């Protein structure tokens, strides 16, 4: 392999494709039209959405997927995607998705919401959709902050977590306790599948992808409501360095919102 000099350092060249090798992962997957976006350095949301669209492509469901987006930083990223996107009012995506699925039962219908959108602005929407056993898949990008509006505390912010309002950590006496939304949804009769993943390392990204695949399979079999919560890094809202954010997620956020399959599913036993 050729080398080049960058600064004072001799390194292997990474500016052109090798001619004796096979491409195994492209810059952007099939359903991401453009890679460039305005989300912050180190944001976990594009990583999670990449996993979701890769799953949809693997399923061969590209032409019949209809997504419904909530309002948060991820909303801007929906412009980069080559799937149908409907924009819901803040917190209302599960209700809009209910209508879509009932009118188009052959479509693969998913929502993408943040914790502020789902658990603060529109908690009743997702709970009622789960209780009704709507045959849709709701995906929650949980970073424990209202990221887009400046990193304020949400209903999923864990005790001790830094946010703009709680720079020294959420305090139960002052701020109350977090809602463990994945566990709440798993406890509901209409929920067929619920799981909580994360994107803080490559192992968890792969595991989350299997959870998304299991949730979509649940919907395709018509078994009822499916839910995948994905813990995502928000270094900007957590007021920490980007390189510290994966460990912060593992130590602080996932200490309370524990990663694993919460209900049902065809994920191998090792992943429970």
């Amino acid at each position, binding site marked *: *392999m050729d*080398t080049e000099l*960058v*600064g*004072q*350092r*001799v*390194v*292997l*060249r*990474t*500016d*052109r*494709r*090798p001619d*004796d*090798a*096979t*491409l*195994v*992962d*492209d*810059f*952007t997957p099939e359903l*991401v039209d453009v*890679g*460039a*976006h305005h*989300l*912050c*350095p*180190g*944001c*976990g*949301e*594009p*990583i999670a959405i*990449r*996993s979701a669209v890769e799953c949809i492509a693997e399923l061969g469901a590209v032409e019949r997927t209809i997504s419904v987006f909530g309002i948060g930083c991820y909303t801007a990223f929906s412009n980069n995607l080559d799937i149908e996107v409907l924009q819901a009012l803040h917190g209302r995506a599960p209700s809009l998705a209910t209508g879509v699925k009932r009118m188009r039962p052959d479509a693969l219908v998913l929502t993408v919401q943040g914790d502020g959108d789902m658990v603060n602005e529109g908690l009743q929407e997702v709970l009622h959709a789960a209780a009704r056993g709507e045959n849709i898949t709701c995906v929650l990008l949980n970073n424990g902050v209202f990221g887009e509006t400046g990193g304020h505390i949400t209903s999923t912010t864990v005790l001790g977590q830094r946010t703009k309002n709680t720079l020294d950590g959420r305090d139960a006496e002052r701020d109350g306790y977090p809602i463990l939304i994945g566990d709440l949804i798993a406890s509901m009769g209409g929920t067929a599948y619920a799981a909580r993943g994360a*994107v803080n*390392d*490559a192992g968890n*990204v*792969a595991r989350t992808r299997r959870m998304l695949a299991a949730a979509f399979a649940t919907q395709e079999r018509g078994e009822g409501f499916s839910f995948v919560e994905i813990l995502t890094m928000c*270094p900007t809202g957590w007021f920490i360095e*980007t*390189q510290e954010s*994966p460990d912060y997620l593992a130590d602080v956020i996932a200490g309370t919102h524990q990663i694993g399959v919460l209900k049902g599913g065809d994920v191998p036993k090792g992943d429970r």
Partner: protein
Amino acid sequence: MTLTRGTVVIDREACKGCDLCIDACPPRVLEMTTTVVNTIGHRFPLLIAPGCTGCKACSQICPDFCFQVYKFDEPKEIPWPVD
């Protein structure tokens, strides 16, 4: 000598310098620049030694889609260090 099974193409100009790929790389063959930055002012990763396995950890963790990952048809022995 370490066998090299894969390699990456890096879109330096798309990088926002977040460092996530560095810790994600199991054989630790990626390292950020220290003095050189791209045109939007961010440091970016370099492939600093042989030993890439083509595992895709970097491409799957990068929020800004900066990696293409390749697997060599035959694993290689790359002489290292070079002068």
